[in-house]
């Protein structure tokens, strides 16, 4: 059984249809890249999978391990193992990062019927992961993402990914706003989490990110549909020829 199965998904925002019958199958151990021009519906897809309000699904379905994801609240999806790394992680003043991480991790564990982490175990785990991502301790004491640079915010997303150990990671434009060094650190963090038990969907406009996170499959989206799928070479091809050739195909 596929980990994620998106079947003929149709999605509206207000009166506009954004996705017109999108299908995508992702199995454990795979890394899929979704590429496409601005406005092709890439971010909409990631938001609908994570359960962001404001989108109306008018047709199709999303199955996660065979379960109907669209019937679940966003927090239930997280507990089942869906993780969205935000394109623009929000700042939450007054909520200390450490407190947030512990509350979120324990909420997920509780929802799965697992025991909550003890404080020392939790701290040990966070410190280990933070160190590998080059996240200083004082960042963890600050409000969630408050005053973080673009790179720090993205690293904080990857820190959460490592901590929550999701089955499906969706990385929405992880490279946006990152310089090459920040990108490399973030990509290393993601690569360390590649595993036969986990799948990743990497959403990006540019092929640059895929030099660091090597995908198994590449899908091109245009005007709310997947118009072409292939292997890694498809990304390189796009780099050469751009998206224009697909605009008509859609």
């Amino acid at each position, binding site marked *: 059984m596929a980990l994620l199965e998106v079947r003929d998904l149709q999605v509206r925002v207000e009166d506009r249809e954004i996705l017109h019958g999108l299908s995508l199958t992702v199995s454990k151990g795979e890394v899929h890249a979704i590429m496409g021009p601005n406005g092709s519906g890439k971010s909409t897809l990631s938001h609908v999978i994570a359960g962001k309000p404001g989108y109306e699904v008018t047709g199709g379905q999303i199955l996660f391990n065979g379960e109907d994801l669209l019937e679940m609240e966003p927090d239930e999806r997280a507990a089942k193992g869906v993780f969205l790394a935000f394109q623009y992680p929000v700042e939450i003043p007054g909520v200390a990062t450490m407190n*947030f991480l512990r509350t*979120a991790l324990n909420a997920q564990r509780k929802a799965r019927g697992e025991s909550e982490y003890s404080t020392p175990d939790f701290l040990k785990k966070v410190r280990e992961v933070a160190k590998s991502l080059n996240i200083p301790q004082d960042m963890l004491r600050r409000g969630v993402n408050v005053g973080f640079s673009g790179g720090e915010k993205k690293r904080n997303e990857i820190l959460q990914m490592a901590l929550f150990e999701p089955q499906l990671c969706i990385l929405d434009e992880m490279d946006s706003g990152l310089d090459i060094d920040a990108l490399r650190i973030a990509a290393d963090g993601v690569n360390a989490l590649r595993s036969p038990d986990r799948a990743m969907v990497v959403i990006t406009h540019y092929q640059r990110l895929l030099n660091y996170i090597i995908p198994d499959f590449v899908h091109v989206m245009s005007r709310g549909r997947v118009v072409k799928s292939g292997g890694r070479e498809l990304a390189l091809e796009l780099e050469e020829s751009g998206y224009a050739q697909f605009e008509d195909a859609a």
Partner: protein
Amino acid sequence: MNVALAKTDAGRAVDRVFAAARDRLPGGGRVADARGKAFEAFERAGLPHRRLEEWKYTDLRVLMREVLPLAGAPDAAALERARPALQACAIDGAARLVLVDGVFVETLSDAAEAGVSVRALRKVLEQDDTDLLSASATDVMISLNAALATDGVVIEVGDGAALTRPIQIVHVATAASASIVTRSLLKLGKGARATLVESFVAAEGAKGYQSNDAVMIAVGDGAELSQVRLVADSLDAVNVTSAIYAIGARTKLNVFNLTSGGAVSRFQGFLTLAGEGSELSVNGVNLLKGTQHADTTLVVDHAVPHCTSREIFRAVVDDRAHSVFQGRIIVRPDAQKTDGKMMTRALLLSDEAEADNKPELEIFADDVTCGHGATAGALDEGLLFYLRARGLAEKEAQALLIQAFVGEAIEQIADDKFREAAMAQAERWLEARH
């Protein structure tokens, strides 16, 4: 003209309340005269209403309708019922002074530490001392308070005394459909240091009571006071508290009010900075649900130069509740180099919730820094989704954001223990929402 002929039903009812109470109110002679005059002042105006600017958003004629008869002195059964309520609001290490239904109960209270004198207000009034019935601020509810105050505590901290234990005044209500009227004084001598917590709680059986408290606080030159009010009255009660502060030079005064209880409540603070070089911080949080109405009205009067004042206020308003914040900063002509700032924010958790923010600056000096800001809005959907996408259920996500929101005000509390107590009361309110 015969005034009596013009009386309304409510006017006649309050006449009867005062007439019935007169015989049992402590103090004769001059004290009785002073009470009579205060009552006349109240009677002329009646309960405050929306046509008075100061009471615009809190119309007591609508919200309170009438003044209930005074509660009787608590009997043994009432004192027994007060005990669990006292336990619930206990603060570790505090020297507790307990008022049950408006009467100071020595047997439930702790002895004061060295350097502090504590007397019951009724003892002071019985000595024909009228000073405590006069107040520097004028308000009709203060007049009513002077007329009907049954008891209170008169606390005096000597010059230079640094208290090791917080003083806690606990107002416990056990009465039903009655007025509880108290008046207290805290006087800090020069260079004294103290912490004061005032708790308003209801014992089992307390119902529909009306609490009217007045507290006079005098902070001597160089003194430091941290004060926290934790208002957790029963949800059908009325609580109007007037706090009148006389603030000396080079003081540090830190005041915090947390209201999560009561059907109708108002905390009105009149703070006069009368000595140079003082730092004043007055903050508060309202946590309201159902049809609760809570009003914080502060008048900060910079009468002299070189003082700073800071006001941070947060309201969380759910269901059909109504929160009011009125903050007036007055800078007198001589009060140059005044630095006064006020920020009030309201979080509306339902479409029917209401928050009124009314900041006012009256500046008569030309070399000052003053500012204010006010906002009202809902929880940020983007933040909520982020938290939910990380596994927090809707109420949990809301609770975390609300905690952060009120935390900005609670953080201002100078005393660690008080900060924890305020946070605990806020957390209880949030848990009750689940």
